[in-house]
């Protein structure tokens, strides 16, 4: 049997500099991205603020991957359903798929949602603005939070506006006599818009939480994480909506 071990005493010991010793900014002592992440010598960096942020991002992205699959499955129903007609006694193909006219307000809602994605991105970047973050980390006031707060507030308002707009769209359809249970297309329309609206509803809670968090959390990196994760979620919801909206408009 061949000898299998190849390591020896020369393995370099790296000292963990400890938690809290590093400011939550991108700059690293090694310069740039900290280029010691060698395949065979994973360094001891699992305790700094950047690593904490990466862990939270990973968890949120895992959840969003699941969410993406969730919406993909709902959409699969959309593609299967129109073809699920049947052949009647007279050998005619009968389909009960009735295209549905999209309420025009959805265009406005889409614009609002895109705008909200923009505002939250601005807010997020304020919290990663290096000079301001360093000041916060050193305890010199809260310049980053103060600059992010108005944008965050704008996002909350725009998010609320979007949900109101969706509500109006549902009301308009109801006024035409189209409900969830009316026909296959309305099943689908209400299902995807409802599921998406529910996600945005949770997103609004997350936004409010992030708004409180950036003021209340003691550690700068936790403020960043609260806003960063919320904005990833919010962006994903915008992307999902664009995808669903194109589907609703073009593939009736």
């Amino acid at each position, binding site marked *: *049997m*061949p*000898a*299998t*071990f*190849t*390591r*020896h*005493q020369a*393995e370099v*010991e*790296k000292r*963990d500099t400890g938690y809290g010793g590093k400011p939550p900014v991108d700059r690293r002592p090694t310069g740039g991205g900290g280029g010691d992440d*060698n*395949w*065979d*010598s*994973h*360094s*001891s960096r*699992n305790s700094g603020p950047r*690593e*904490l942020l*990466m*862990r*939270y991002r*990973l*968890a949120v992205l*895992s*959840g969003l*991957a*699941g*969410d*993406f*699959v*969730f*919406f993909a*499955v*709902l959409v*699969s*129903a959309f593609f*299967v*359903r129109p073809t*699920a*007609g*049947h052949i009647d006694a007279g050998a005619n193909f009968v389909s*009960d798929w009735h295209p549905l006219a999209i309420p025009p307000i959805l265009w406005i809602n889409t614009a609002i949602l895109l705008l909200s994605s923009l505002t939250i991105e601005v807010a997020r970047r304020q919290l990663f603005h290096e000079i301001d973050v360093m000041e916060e980390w050193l305890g010199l006031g809260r310049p980053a939070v103060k600059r992010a707060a108005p944008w965050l507030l704008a996002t909350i308002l725009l998010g609320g506006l979007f949900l109101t707009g969706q509500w109006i769209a549902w009301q308009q359809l109801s006024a035409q006599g189209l409900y*969830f*249970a009316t026909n*296959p297309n309305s*099943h689908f329309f209400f*299902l995807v818009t409802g*599921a998406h609206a529910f996600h945005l509803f949770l997103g609004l809670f997350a936004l409010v939480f992030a708004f409180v968090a950036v003021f209340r*959390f003691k*550690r700068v990196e*936790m403020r960043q994480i609260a806003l960063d994760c919320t904005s990833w979620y919010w962006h994903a919801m915008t992307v999902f909506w664009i995808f669903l909206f194109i589907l609703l408009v073009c593939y009736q």
Partner: protein
Amino acid sequence: MNAPRAQPAAPSRGFLGRRIFTTDHRALAILYLLLGLAAVIVGTLLSLVIRIHRVWPTVPFPLYGILRPEDYLAVVTMHGTLMVFFVLTVVPQSAFPNLVLPAQIGTDRMAFPRLNAAAFWLTLASFCVLVAAFFVPQGAPISGWTSYPPLSAIAATGPGQGAGMDCWLFAIGLFCIAAVASSANFLATILARRGPGMSFGRLPLTVWSWLTSSALTVIAFSTLFAAAAMLFADRHCGTSFFIPASEVISGIARTGGGGSPLLWLHLFWFFGHPEVYISILPGMGLASALLANFTRRPVLGYRVMVVATLTIGFLGLGVWGHHMFVSGMNPYAGTAFGLTTIAIAVPSSAEVLTWLAMLFRGRMRFTTPMLFTLGFISFFIAGGLTGPILAQPALDAYLHNTFFVVAHFHLVMAMAGVFSLFAGIYYWYPLLTGRLMNEMLGKAHFWVSLIGAYGTFFPMHFAGLAGEPRHYAQLAGPVESFPSLIPVERGITFAALTLAAAQLIFLFNVFSSARKGVRAGENPWRATTHEWCPGTHPRTRGEPYLYGPNSGDTEDFLPQWELAPPYPSGLKPE
């Protein structure tokens, strides 16, 4: 906000604080194991009801009376659901990672301990809701663990399809959320919380398995959640995603649907097939680790095993249609799914052949965990060999609704899965109690279980080939061949009773060894991975499975946390 680093829980917190309402992953592992134990006890009792009813359909059960056909279907449904979700998912994919995953990657806690704990409580709630289905009006659902519509979509289709089916759906919804939450935690932990020195090339194969199965869990259980949401809408909101245009229910014609029951089958099996790998991949990783330990030689082809694990996970997403050859799906799609299914046999065979190669001239030590690992491999091969047979659409057309399929998946998923769980429990038991389980009882447990399991499931191949249908409450009717199957059925039932009785040995062993077992000491199996490292987690210094005569000066193994000794001058490693 970060919880303080998990120290050994402070003694002031009391039993509840330390063991129950805690974010400590070890304590959660014990809770998950107890949940799995409760589920496996209920599920096994239900399986005995199935077996007894098939042989003596007219004998009344004590306290219940004679089982009606609908009761039989309810029992089958609950048996399948409990075993697949709460045993074969909860134990390998939740309990075991909580027990050893952070330690194996050289860290002291999960990335998100509170999320992890929340997932347990959701799983427990899901279990309670599912079991509640027995006690609601009309009892448990009858549409099988796969819940095909329209049977599952319309309450009028049968007893148990009202409140019972709602319990089932609600339980599954909760389970999906819990599974995705705990997997997100595992993914973040494995990818971004590895301890110093723990590079990807040094991850134990169990961790690679959990990485793959967690990714599969996120995808598969999100699919199931969406499907369950749509089924719920069909049942309660008047939609018709899965309800066909017209059908006759209990003699009453019903129209107005127009949806596609086939869509549910696609979605369910897009969940259901990855679920098989979620159950078995941790067992495969564990088998590699245990074989290395108990043959005292390294895992052959570590990188091949990693690639095979990832490939199985990836291909496992593309084979779901082989559950649907007789569902009315496009036959050309059947051919495609047959091909992908045969393709997945390639990485699976790579793993099996590696294990066999490790056994060949290995210095085997027949401890109880090793025996159960060998049992796992035996069942995996025996059940796996009928896989390519069932992957032929033409053969499956005959075999699909027979006991041949029951034999196949009980060998390859249920028995292989459960034997790997036993291997893990016998192996990691010292981590929980500081003691070893009794070897004599363990070996008795193994041999009786092995014989009982083969006696139960192997004859089902012959019954299936002879045409015995599954899902039927009893063998009656004009078909002449059925009476000739009764002796086989009776033999299966006796074997199943033996198999279940053998588990009493296990239960006794678990609880008696906790108090009277031999003290294990540090690293009783002389293993190399970090969960056996005494004290806190030091830096990882090398590959995970360094066993063999060359691995150390005095010992034949080199733990991941130890430096290699200086080499003697004449023995340069090459």
